[in-house]
C-alpha cells in the first residue's frame, strides 16, 4: 500500500499537461516510475474512482481527477459510494483520522 505515491501521481496528472500526455501515450512506463502495488496501478489505469477513494486518496485530489477523466458530479459521488459498497470502508489517509472510523 503506497497511498503517498498514488496521490502523488494523481496530483501530477491533475496539474501537469506533460504528465497527462505520457499517461495517454505511454501509461505503463509512466506508472512504473511510482511505487505502486498491482491493485493501485490497476485502479489508476482503469480510472476506478470508487476504489481510489476507499484506498484513502484525498477527495480534493480525487475530485479533480474525476473531472479530468470526464465524470460529471453525480457520477463522481456515485462512484465513491459504489466503491465503499464493493470494497468496504476507507482504508487509510485523512478519512480514518477518528479512532471509531478506522476499518
Amino acid at each position: 500500500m503506497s497511498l503517498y505515491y498514488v496521490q502523488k501521481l494523481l496530483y501530477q496528472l491533475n496539474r501537469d499537461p506533460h504528465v497527462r500526455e505520457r499517461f495517454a501515450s505511454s501509461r505503463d512506463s509512466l506508472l512504473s516510475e511510482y511505487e505502486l502495488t498491482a491493485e493501485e496501478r490497476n485502479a489508476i489505469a482503469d480510472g476506478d474512482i470508487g476504489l481510489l477513494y476507499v484506498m484513502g486518496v484525498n477527495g480534493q485530489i480525487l475530485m479533480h481527477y474525476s473531472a479530468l477523466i470526464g465524470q460529471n458530479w453525480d457520477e463522481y459521488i456515485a462512484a465513491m459510494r459504489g466503491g465503499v459498497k464493493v470494497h468496504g470502508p476507507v482504508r487509510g489517509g485523512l478519512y480514518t483520522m477518528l479512532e471509531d472510523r478506522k476499518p
Partner: protein
Amino acid sequence: MSLVFAGVCSHAPGITGRAQRADPKVRDAFYAKLAELRARLEAAMPDALIVIAAEHFANFFMNNMPAYCMGMADQYEGPIEDEQWLAIKRTRVPGNADLARRIVKRMMHDIDLAYAEEWKFDHGIMVPLNFLTPRYDLAVIPVNINCQGPPLTPLHRAYEFGRILRRACDAQPERIAVVGTGGISHWPATPDSGVINETWDRAFLDKFVHNRSDELVAYSDEETFRDAGQGGFEIRTFIAVAGATEGSTGEVLFYAPIPAFAVGCTVAVMTVGAASRRDSAR
C-alpha cells in the same frame, strides 16, 4: 499605508460550477451579498488584495508541504480545473511581487513562512476572485495555509499568522485588503458532500465576528473533523483574518447552508481598527 479592508467568504467550486442546482432564491441572495462584499472592498480603494486561502493540491503536495506560503509573483494563472467544470474561464491574474516581497521580509522577523514565485490558482482563490475582482484588475497576493495534509498548523498559530501579517501590512505605503476564504463545516469531495452542520457554523461565526480569540483557537482537529468534516480544517483562514483584525469585531452579511454547493455559504466583514497596542509598542 496599512490594512484597509478585511472580509471572508466561501469558495466551494459548486458556487460557480453547479450554480443551476441550487435553489435560485437562496443562491441569488448569496450572490447579492458577494456583490456587496465587492462593493465594500472597492470602496476601501485597495492597491492589492491578499487572499488567505486553503488550496487543494494545486501547487503544494506532501513532498514539501509548507504550513504557510505567500505568493511573490507579478502574475498568476487559474483556474487549474477544467473551465467548464468550474464555469470560470482560465485567465491571468495580476500580482505584485515587490509588495509581496516586502511583506514576506517583514513577517519573517516574527514567523516562518514559505514563499512561491510561481502559483496556479484553483477554485479556492478563483471562485472568490470571480465575484470580488471579476475584471482581474486588482493585484492579488495569494497566501496558503495548509488545511489539507495533516499535520496542520495549530489554530493559535493561524491567529498569530494573521496578527503578524497585519503588522507587515501596516508597515507598507500601499493600501492593502485581506480576504480569507474557506469552510466552514463541510465534507467536500466525499460521499458526504452536501452535509452541512449549520449549528456548528453559526456558533463558529459568532466567535469569529466577535473576535473571541480564545474560543476561536480552542477547537481540536479531531473535534473539527467529527463535527465539521475535513473541510472544517479551513477555519484557519477565517482565524487568520480574525488575527489580522485583533481587537475589532465584524458582521455576518450572509450565511445559509446551500447543499448543492456543499457548504454553508458565508460572507462576512471585519472592521479594520487601529493595530492593537501590543503591536505598536514593539
